[in-house]
């Protein structure tokens, strides 16, 4: 019996180790075990510390356990043996009260430090000891897509978030329907995206260029599992260029091919009530300014024309069960859908695309051109570009929230 038990245990253990080696602990663009960002690194350290402590505890427990099982089995030759009925032992009991307390303290101190560090959204300090301008991005979660507005820059995207590497970006997040949760495991931990009234803030700092996969981590409906997005981390110089390119887009640009031009017209007639091209406040559907550079359709579907047409024609019914595009009133012929697809796939205002994140080009910049002088006057400036309007119309109802200091970011102008 005993032998069987041990060998089974060993077999399971060997299998697990093997499997681990095989998979290499997940993919680098997704795994929290291969941190590529400031937050993820801090958390990874904390994980390792806690795992070491836990392994120590486990070994202690298992050693006693094994001894006990081997040594104190009923003896075949003396089944009537009556062991001594010990009541307990103060020394031992103190020991296993005190040692865990110490171990927990060792874990608790960095936990508290990191908890505060991760919640810190004060501006970064550069080498000269000056406060740097903070790049704020307003994130809106919606069933089942993500919207990103670069605060004060007149740039919006959906589904794919471009950020500069080696520089914190500051996220301010809320939801327009149910609770979602914003998670890019390789860069940082997650944060809930709550509906009106409880806006959350966090920072994101990617240390390596790359395309990182993001997930919605709070059950939000049937398509919760495919509410994916990407974070595209490019070098600061490239990012600066990307912003400039994006700022130029009005949506009026004439595409090259004739089909695409027709597609543009059809898009304007059928799709613009919900979607936008060019900077716009968050609308009913995703912003499509740089749709031509997307890696995936709707965050998950392979990017090609067939799929796009299918998406347009089925309104994503099968591809994203329960999505709100299903309610869109339009009715298109197949060739019309194709034209729209042609138009959309041509929307590529910038040379900076996900490929720029994978190539080894690194352009440095301090991003100062994104923050013109007058911006420095005060944060109240932010409210002019309109994004805080949708934040505030529902907000009046939760006055308690507004009283809190942390939220003056949003409510200054009130």
């Amino acid at each position, binding site marked *: 019996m005993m032998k069987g038990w041990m060998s089974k245990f060993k077999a399971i253990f060997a299998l697990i180790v093997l499997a681990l080696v095989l998979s290499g602990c997940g993919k680098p663009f997704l795994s929290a075990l291969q941190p590529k960002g400031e937050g993820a690194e801090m958390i990874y350290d904390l994980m390792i510390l806690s795992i070491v402590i836990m392994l120590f505890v486990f070994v202690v427990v298992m050693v006693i356990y094994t001894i006990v099982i081997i040594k104190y089995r009923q003896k075949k030759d003396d089944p009537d043996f009556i062991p001594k009925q010990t009541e307990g032992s103060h020394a031992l009991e103190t020991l296993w009260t005190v040692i865990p307390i110490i171990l927990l303290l060792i874990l608790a101190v960095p936990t508290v430090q990191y908890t505060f560090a991760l919640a810190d959204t004060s501006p970064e300090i550069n080498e000269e000891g000056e406060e740097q301008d903070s790049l704020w991005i307003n994130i809106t979660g919606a069933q089942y897509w993500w919207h990103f507005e670069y605060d004060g820059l007149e740039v919006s995207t959906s589904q794919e978030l471009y950020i500069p590497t080696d520089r914190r970006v500051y996220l301010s997040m809320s939801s327009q329907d149910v609770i979602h949760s914003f998670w890019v495991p390789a860069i940082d931990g997650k944060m809930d995206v709550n509906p009106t009234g409880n806006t959350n803030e966090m920072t994101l700092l990617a240390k390596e260029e790359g395309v990182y996969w993001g997930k919605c981590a709070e059950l939000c409906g049937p398509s919760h599992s495919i509410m994916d997005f990407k974070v595209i981390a490019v070098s600061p110089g490239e990012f600066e260029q990307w912003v400039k390119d994006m700022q130029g887009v009005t949506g009026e640009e004439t595409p090259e091919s004739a089909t695409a031009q027709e597609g543009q017209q059809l898009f304007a007639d059928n799709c613009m009530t919900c979607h936008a091209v060019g900077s716009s406040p968050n609308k009913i559907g995703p912003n499509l300014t740089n749709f031509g550079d997307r890696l995936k359709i709707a965050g998950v579907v392979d990017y090609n024309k067939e799929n796009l047409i299918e998406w347009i024609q089925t309104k994503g019914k099968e591809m994203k069960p329960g999505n709100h595009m299903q309610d869109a009133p339009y009715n298109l012929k197949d060739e019309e859908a194709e034209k729209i697809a042609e138009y959309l796939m041509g929307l590529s205002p910038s040379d900076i695309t996900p490929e720029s994140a994978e190539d080894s080009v690194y352009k440095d910049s301090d991003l100062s051109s994104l923050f013109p002088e007058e911006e420095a006057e005060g944060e109240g400036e932010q409210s002019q570009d309109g994004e805080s309007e949708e934040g505030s119309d529902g907000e009046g*109802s*939760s*006055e*308690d929230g507004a009283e809190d200091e942390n939220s003056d970011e949003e409510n200054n102008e009130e």
Partner: protein
Amino acid sequence: MADDMLKSTNLPQNPERATLEGRNKFMGFWFFLGGETVLFASLFGTYLALKNSTVDGPAANEIFGLELVFIMTIVLLTSSLTSVYAMYHMKNNDPKKMQLWLGITVALGLTFLGLEIYEFYHYVHGYHFGYTTSAFSSAFYTLVGFHGAHVAFGLGWIVSLMIRNAKRGVNLYNAPKFYIASLYWHFIDVVWVFIFTVVYLMGKVG
């Protein structure tokens, strides 16, 4: 023994706790009240969290009038005393007087309930402050309404006890029932003390 239970002479000092069944009821009911404390705390907490979420509807200090609440408070506090009187006579094995004081308690409880219904009616029709007006209104009616429902249930309970035992005296079988009904009644009063303080008075001072 079963006959002992129904005999109404020779009662001990605390008839409600003289039998095992009585002691069980007594203990169980107290514990239940411990749970009720958390129940009402959850409602109070929800109310406090939402009391400023008036959206377009009226706010607390715009609608609450203190006169009515004051009268309701006095009525309910008095009913607590009258139910103490009822228990006093129960312990003295004087069922007639006990029934009388229970009757007074019920009358006061009914008055309270009537006033509360009038109050709600007034809010709904006078101020367009309905259940679905705002998060605040939902929280208000739910908290106060839960209390009101407790009052109504308490009244039903006491009345049915009075009717059931109208023709027989106090005994070891029914004394615990009377006693825990009165505990319940006091608890309702306890909750009301917090309602008038937290909802009405604090709603008035803001």
